[in-house]
């Protein structure tokens, strides 16, 4: 690998050729604010927060799309850079509702974090604001287009990760907005509610609806786990408050799936605390389901299967296994079918 050496804020750093200035900074723990950048998505270069000063370049180039070159001299914290970032943040905040007290994103909001660091109040530019209706049409995702900073991450996630392209920009200039075609509510669009858009939104424009009002980020313990819904093995974080799961968020470190999840994994976890949830086996007695122990249930199943086998032969029995089971469980299931019951009639719901 070819290496290059450059200077960032007076420090000499060495990075592989092909590294962007932003990556070079992050490799060396030099903080650069970004809103539209995401290593999993294509480079968009639109928020302009990551601007730096580079000797010999006119204007303030965005570090996320500027390649580091040998001998480059980069400054990330000059007053010119900081002033420009402050102005950009003032512009964003001027077109953003300041209802942070009730915003679900508070404590985890990139805009608020940078506004705090750069002492931005939203008082400098007072003028027209976007006023668009809230999309409250579905049980999973709450979309507040007025909080959108048009970073385009959700658009790219929908297209590049999920391959759906349900979201895109519409209109232009100050009137630009993000949403499904015709700005229909999510529920009327072709959205499959994978929630990838929510997982990348840096502000409160897209939030998990069921978590609204349930807890603040600092009250929540994140427990990494594997999704039980299918055999894919996606990882995510259960958000636990006071011993109760209030929702699911993506864990970018998840080895199988990254931030991607499906609607069941991301939004189906309310079954955990559902009062209707079965906690013991049920056996039908006199036309009524009656609670039973696992031993009772197993015995009954074994007995009935045995009877069928005796009367009609093993091939009268067929076994269908579930995609919700792990590979190991599926292996055991075919073992049961072939070795114990004695039939090859074993199939799996995800096979076709």
């Amino acid at each position, binding site marked *: 690998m070819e290496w290059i050496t450059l200077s960032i804020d007076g420090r000499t750093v060495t990075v592989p050729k092909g590294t962007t200035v932003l990556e070079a900074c992050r490799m060396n723990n030099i903080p650069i604010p970004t809103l539209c950048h995401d290593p999993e998505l294509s480079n968009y270069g639109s928020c302009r927060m990551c601007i730096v000063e580079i000797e010999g370049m006119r204007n303030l180039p965005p570090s996320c799309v500027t390649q580091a070159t040998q001998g480059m001299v980069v400054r990330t914290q000059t007053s010119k850079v900081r002033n420009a970032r402050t102005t950009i943040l003032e512009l964003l905040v001027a077109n953003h509702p300041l209802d942070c007290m009730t915003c679900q994103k508070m404590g985890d909001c990139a805009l608020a974090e940078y506004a705090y660091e750069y002492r931005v109040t939203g008082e400098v530019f007072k003028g027209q604001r976007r006023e668009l209706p809230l999309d409250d049409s579905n049980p999973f995702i709450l979309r507040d287009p007025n909080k959108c900073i048009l970073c385009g991450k959700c658009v790219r996630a929908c297209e590049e990760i999920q391959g*759906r*392209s*349900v*979201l*895109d*920009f*519409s*209109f*232009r200039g100050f009137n630009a907005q993000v949403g*499904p*075609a*015709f*700005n229909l509510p999510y529920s009327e*669009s*072709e959205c499959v509610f994978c929630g990838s858009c929510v997982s990348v939104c840096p502000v409160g424009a897209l939030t998990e609806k069921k978590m609204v009002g349930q807890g603040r980020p600092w009250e929540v313990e994140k427990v990494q786990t594997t999704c039980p819904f299918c055999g894919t093995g996606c990882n995510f974080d259960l958000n636990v408050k006071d011993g109760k799961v209030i929702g699911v968020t993506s864990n970018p470190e998840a080895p199988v799936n990254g931030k991607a999840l499906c609607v069941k994994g991301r939004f189906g976890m309310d079954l955990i605390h559902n009062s209707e949830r079965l906690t013991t086996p049920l056996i039908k007695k006199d036309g009524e389901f009656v609670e039973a122990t696992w031993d009772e249930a197993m015995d009954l199943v074994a007995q009935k299967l045995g009877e069928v086998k005796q009367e009609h032969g093993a091939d009268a029995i067929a076994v269908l296994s579930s995609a919700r089971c792990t590979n190991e469980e599926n292996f055991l299931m075919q073992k049961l079918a072939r070795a114990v019951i004695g039939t090859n009639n074993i199939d799996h719901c995800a096979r076709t």
Partner: protein
Amino acid sequence: MCEACEDLIDPKETELDAVIARHVREKGALIPVLQKAQEIYGYLPAEVLKHVGRGLRIPLSKIYGVVTFYAQFRLMPMGRNVLRVCLGTACHVRGGAKVLETIEQELGVKDGGTTEDQRFTLEIVACIGACGLAPTMMINDEVHGRLTAENVTEILSKYE
């Protein structure tokens, strides 16, 4: 085909299908197809956009994004005549705003509006490139220049 079936065929849709078929293998065909579709229908109803999306295999969100990006595309029906008043620099300094005001009063509509009788759709544009004759306007494909508050009314009366 029987006569009853022929009645069910929408000639506009047939024309649109022909346009789509002609462009379907072409790269970057969306904008030319939308331009043709607008010529056929006069504007771009949602159903037409869906039809184009299916034909060209382009997600509807992208089509909507394109349609709302370019000034030429219309999601609402237009009047029989499209009146584009130029407020480019040259027209601005030579009193284009006054001409616009007169037209707005005359027609009773503002930028983007269509008169009730569907006679005119009014649009404000920035430069139609006839600056030498400022202030100017374009009705359909015809340019009218050296406008004044007085002669503009007369010009409008020529369009039905």
